């Protein structure tokens, strides 16, 4: 549903990404790897319209995202759950309300038992009344993932969602994403963690993309 057509991007200096074409088919599972500074976060921002390509276009269901009105951008983001690398929250609201925010801020009903189940899956139930500034890096990442999936969006984009997590917790989050993928959700995870990729590939047909020399390639055995 999200498609890149010969996309290039630069922040004003040299070109960071060049001639990228890609289709994130509904129900697909992708990993995105590449050295630090290669442009993974930039690529994800192009996916959900925080950035627009400097050349080429990114489409959502064949519509150029550049042409979206502000309300259409909001509408699009309800269908795309994002875990940011720098997980930001509303620091004055307790964790549970932050996780439920995509529901409350878009006027959707909030089911408290669903919220609790999700919080216990990511191991945050005991912390649900805590304010975000008091959480550890890993706890914030888990909360960000919970927030990204709570509306059951069609697409989930996660930027290093397990960067600060121990292996056991990483697997727990992966299982959640794999289950969502089996329900038909489209998943894209930017990560350096090869073990995580290996573990995922044993459960779902995941493809691995790598940003190299400003271009996107299929990596490893997929090549």
């Amino acid at each position, binding site marked *: 549903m999200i498609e890149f057509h010969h996309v290039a991007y630069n922040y004003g200096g040299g070109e960071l990404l060049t001639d990228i074409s890609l289709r994130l088919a509904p129900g697909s599972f992708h990993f995105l790897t590449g050295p630090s500074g290669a442009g993974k976060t930039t690529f994800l921002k192009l996916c*959900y*319209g*925080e*950035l627009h390509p400097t050349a080429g276009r990114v489409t959502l269901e064949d519509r150029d995202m550049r042409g979206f009105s*502000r*309300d259409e*951008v*909001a*509408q*699009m*983001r*309800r269908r795309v759950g*994002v875990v*940011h690398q720098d997980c*930001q*929250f*509303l*620091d*004055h*609201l307790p964790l549970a*309300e932050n996780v439920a*925010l*995509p529901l*409350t*801020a*878009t006027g959707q009903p909030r089911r408290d038992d669903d919220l609790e189940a999700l919080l216990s899956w990511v191991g945050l139930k005991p912390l649900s009344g805590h304010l975000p500034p008091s959480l550890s890096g890993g706890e914030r990442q888990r909360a960000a993932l919970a*927030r990204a999936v709570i509306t059951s969006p069609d697409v989930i984009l996660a930027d290093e969602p397990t960067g600060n997590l121990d292996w056991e917790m990483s697997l727990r989050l992966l299982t959640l994403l794999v289950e969502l993928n089996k329900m038909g959700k489209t998943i894209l995870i930017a990560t350096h963690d090869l073990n995580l990729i290996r573990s995922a590939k044993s459960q779902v047909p995941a493809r691995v993309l790598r940003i190299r020399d400003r271009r996107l390639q299929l990596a490893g055995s997929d090549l």
Partner: protein
Amino acid sequence: MNGIARFLMGDTTADRIVPPTGFTARLTTFTAAAMAFLAVFALALSLASGRLAERWSAALAQTATIRISAPSDQMAAQTAKVMAILKETPGVASAQPLTDAQQKKLLEPWFGPDLPLDALPIPRLVDVRETAQGFDAEGLRNRLAASVPGAVLDDHTRWRKPLVAAADRLRLLGLVAILLIAGATAAMITLAANAALAANGQVIRVLRLIGARDRYIARAFVRRFTLRALAGAAIGTVLGMGAVLLLPAQNEAGGFLTGLGFQGLGWAWPLLIPPLAALVSFLATQAAAFHTLRGLS
């Protein structure tokens, strides 16, 4: 109306997305209160000068004076001629030459009781009362000039006009002051709203990224500032009205100054100030919020 009610009642979750900001909150409430207080006085000034202008024009419009200067042996004849002309002038309700005693009484405050009125060439005054339609002053003046050269019509317009103009000007100044107060309120609330929006950059970014619409985000800010302005203006208005109430009661000696209060239905006017302040605040915050939001992706 339904929309306004819903806006005022709000939904508590939408309100909570903006953290409470003690400083800008108090600033807004104080500004609104101070401005409302001033607006009450500007309104009182404007209404009072309006009343004054009306009273002066009404009281003075119905009277005129004819002054006859003539040698004392011709005075009676000329006065009779003037009276005859007045009798035939349409619009004159009654005309009465002042007696010596009355003239003496008029001059007494200036010259004392011992004025030898007979020895002085004092002009004779004729007091003219107009009907509601009034008379044609220019025509009367011409006819007097033709037959009684010593008679001069003073229809008070000469000194009435600047007084009424002054009162009208004062009323205008009051209205301008109210407009300036509204503008200053809008400016200060815009500044406070911009400060709040800037301080909550992260809140706005997060909300945008999870798919909240601009309208939803803006409303949380707008509602807060509108309610603060409403509350502040209500306090300021009540205090202002109280202060006006405590002004000394109207009396003749005080004239304009003691007439500064509200009268009758005039007390309803200041009640418009709080809703107007809320409206000004609503528009100012709305503009500021959408301006900030348009700068974000």
